[in-house]
Every structure is written in structure tokens, then in C-alpha cells.
């Protein structure tokens, strides 16, 4: 179990802001950290990793990672970290980046196959595309089989197909290596699919925690006011969270207007 009780002064988007986090994470738990840009998510991960100073204490099981007087070095924490800007080793190829962390060839191959990077394994990482870099960063973090996996928006640069696939496989690894995980994400479906618990952060504080369901359903975003994108035969095309839907409408509605929509999904079959 990880017990976090830290404070740190930050410059927020509305002036000075205190990062105050007092939370605990269970062993093997998957926590998704969400929250607006500049809320302090990255800073929290960095404090957990011992990369940034903060007041207060962090306990992992019975060992104290930090108190007000000393900090255990990042080297001794066995943490896998996906940096928001990847932070790959520019002087190395894809596979060298992974081998630098761990020499496990079988795992390396598995990860490269999973992330579709096999053909790029000998390429220098500087020449990769954004999404390719992000995948290397993810592989590198998992490669370490860390006790604690910290990921800062690890899928942000990927297309939705790849995202979905990796999401499932990440869950597998999470269980296989029993990695306690904290992941920053803005994507609702990621939270549902992955999170045991979601923390919602605002202005440096965790203002809400619970299951993805609990946290997300309470959000204002839930109100299904959507823009009418197209009108055709008394049907309006709207887009709800990326899904294109057709709704029957009366004639008073025009394109661009916002309408309230309730979703009534129904099951068709439970086998493909």
C-alpha cells in the first residue's frame, strides 16, 4: 500500500496554488488521475517518483520513501515512468532504449509486437513519429516490471484503434506483473476500461475519487447537449463523444443548434 501525504507550492493558472494530496493506493490497484490542464497531475507523479521535492511523507508498505528530512533516491524506488514528453534516450535505438532498463529479450519482443514496433527496433528513436515515440516510452516503462508504474498520458498521441488495443494489453501486464499503477488520462473510456479508482484533481487537490462511473457521472460534461451537425428527412445527425448518431427531430431545429439528447441503448446480441 502506498500512503501519500504531500504538500508543494506551485504556480497555477490562477496564480499561486498548493498541491495538497493525501491519498492511499492499494497494492496492485489501477488509479487513473484525471483533471484539467495545469491541475498538478504531472507534479504529483514526479513527487511520487522522487524526481521533485515536496513536503510531507510517502510510505510504501512499511518503507518510508520520503519524509521532511530525507528522500529515497529514484533509483531505489523501482518505478516505471512514462514521461509526458517521452524522454527517450536519444542516442539509442528503440531496442537499446528498452535493453537499457532490463535485459529480458522475451519481454522485449512481446512488447515490440504488442506496440507494432518490431520493424522499427533498430531505428534511432530521434527519427520516430510522435506516436511511435510514445509507444517506445510505454514499452520502456513496462520493461522494468516495476512495482509502481506511473504513466503521464501514455496514449495521448495514438489513434483510437491502437489506443483500444494497447489499453487491453496494458491491463494484462498490470495484472501479470502485479504493478500498482497510477496513470494520468483525459479519456473517459480509458478510465472505465482501466481504472479501479479515478482521482479527479483540480487546482492541486484531489476533489473527487471513486469508480470511473461515480466520478464521471457526476460531471457536468454528462449533460448531453449536443450540436446538430446535419439535418436530413427530419433526422438530425449529432455526435456524442465521438459516436455519430441520428435523432428524430421536429422542424424547428436548425443545423448548429444545441439539443438535449438522452441515450437509450439496447442490447442486440452478446456474441459476435
Amino acid at each position, binding site marked *: 500500500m502506498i500512503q501519500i501525504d504531500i504538500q508543494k507550492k506551485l504556480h497555477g493558472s490562477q496564480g499561486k496554488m498548493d498541491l495538497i494530496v493525501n491519498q492511499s493506493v492499494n497494492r496492485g490497484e489501477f488509479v487513473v488521475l484525471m483533471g484539467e490542464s495545469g491541475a498538478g497531475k504531472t507534479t504529483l507523479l514526479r513527487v511520487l*517518483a522522487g*524526481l521533485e521535492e515536496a513536503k510531507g511523507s510517502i510510505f510504501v508498505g512499511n518503507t518510508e520513501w520520503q519524509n521532511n528530512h530525507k528522500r529515497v*533516491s*529514484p*533509483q*531505489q*524506488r*523501482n*518505478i*516505471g*515512468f512514462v*514521461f509526458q*514528453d517521452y*524522454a*527517450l*534516450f*536519444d*542516442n*539509442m535505438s528503440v531496442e537499446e532504449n528498452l535493453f*537499457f*532498463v532490463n535485459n529480458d529479450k522475451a519481454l522485449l519482443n512481446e512488447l515490440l509486437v504488442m506496440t507494432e514496433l518490431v520493424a522499427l527496433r*533498430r*531505428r*534511432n528513436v*530521434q*527519427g520516430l513519429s510522435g506516436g511511435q515515440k510514445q509507444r517506445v516510452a510505454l514499452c*520502456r516503462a513496462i520493461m*522494468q516490471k516495476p512495482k509502481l508504474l506511473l504513466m503521464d498520458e501514455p496514449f495521448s498521441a495514438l489513434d483510437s484503434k491502437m489506443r483500444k488495443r494497447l489499453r487491453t494489453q496494458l491491463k494484462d501486464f498490470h495484472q501479470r506483473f502485479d504493478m500498482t499503477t497510477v496513470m494520468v488520462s483525459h479519456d473517459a473510456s480509458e478510465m472505465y476500461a482501466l481504472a479501479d479508482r479515478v482521482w479527479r484533481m483540480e487546482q492541486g487537490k484531489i476533489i473527487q475519487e471513486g469508480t470511473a462511473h461515480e466520478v464521471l457521472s457526476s460531471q457536468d460534461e454528462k449533460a448531453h447537449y449536443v450540436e446538430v451537425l446535419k439535418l436530413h428527412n427530419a433526422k438530425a445527425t449529432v455526435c456524442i463523444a465521438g459516436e455519430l448518431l441520428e435523432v428524430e427531430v421536429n422542424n424547428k431545429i436548425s443545423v448548429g443548434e444545441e439539443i438535449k439528447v438522452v441515450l437509450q441503448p439496447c442490447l442486440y446480441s452478446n456474441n459476435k
Partner: protein
Amino acid sequence: MDFVPFWISFKLAALTTFILFLFALPLAWWLSQTASRTKPFVEALTALPIVLPPSVLGFYLLMALSSHSFLGKFIEDIFGVKLIFSFEGLVVASCFYSLPFMVQPLQSGLEGLNKHMLEASYLAGKSKFQTLFQIALPNIKPSLITALIVTFAHTVGEFGVVLMVGGSIPGETKVASVAIYEMVETMEYGQAHIYAAVMVALSFFVLLAVYIFNHKQKMKMGML
């Protein structure tokens, strides 16, 4: 044509560069990572050996290292090495004089590094030492090459300190730069021209080899 001076020059420059690299690297690393208040003082101190004229610096080194001095005596007693008028002494003096040329480019290179890259290495469980050699240095190649080349070239060209501390003893401390200097002094200009030409040519090819190697490597990395 006597090639011994060139050989001594080369040996001296190579050794100085090597030893200095070992000493300057931790210093440059510390300077690049610290936020300490003493940093500017250490930085200023590091640059000082260049502001004294070489032969004056040589004079002070002569005093400091001679068997009459405490330091010189100490080293002589402990290691059994005489630091004056010996090749070993030249190495020590050159290291002292060329220190800034090694420290400064390394430091500025290390300061320009992406900090997250180093942190990623720490998180992978690598020590500062491993991180320095496997991550930091390979990623500051241009600065590293500048440091090595400027130090090497400068040691080859230096003669003020070397002449003072070494005493121009043939086969031992008479390096090429001193040999050429003496030829000019004795007005054997013809000889001097030849030696200078050889020195410039040799240096040029060494430098060219380094740069071409570096160029090729870069191309390879970008393309493959």
C-alpha cells in the same frame, strides 16, 4: 628530421587529454547539476588558469612543484616522481593549464541536456555514474568533441608552461612546439618551416579524421 619531439608532443597531448577528462568530467557534471550558491565561484576559479600568461603560470608551477616546495617534496617522497624537468611534470602542468578548456565545453553541454532523460535513467535504477557515461555523454557529443579537441590541440600548441616546467630536455621534455620555438629562436627558419608544416599537417589529419568519423556516424544515425 627528428620525429622524437612530435612523438613526445603527441604522447603528452593524449595523456593530458585523457587524465584531464577523468578529472574534469566529475567537476563539469557537478557544476551542471548543482544549484548551489558556490557554483559561480567554482566556475570563475576554473577559468582562471587561462588568464595568466603561460610562462608566468609555468613559473608558479615551477615553484610549486620543485623539490624545494612542500607539494613537490611530498609527491617526490610518496610517489617517487620528480615533477620538474620530467615528462610526468609536463603532464601535471599541462593538465593544470588546460583544465578550463576541458571543463567548460563539457559543462555547457551537460547543462543543455534534457533533464527528463537523466531522470528516466535514474528511474531505471542506473547510478549517476552509469547515467553520465551511458546517457549524458553520448547525448552531448558535439560538446564532448569540442572539449577533447580543444584540449588536445591546445596541449600540442602550448609551449610557455612546458618550456618552463620541462626545461626542453631532448627525448624527455622537448616537445615539438618547443623544438619549433627553438628553431625560430636560433633562426633556423628553414627547419622551423618544415617542422611547423609537419605539425600542422599531422594535427590537421588527426582533427579531420575525428570530424569525418563524427560526421559519418551522425549520417548513419539519421538515416538508418
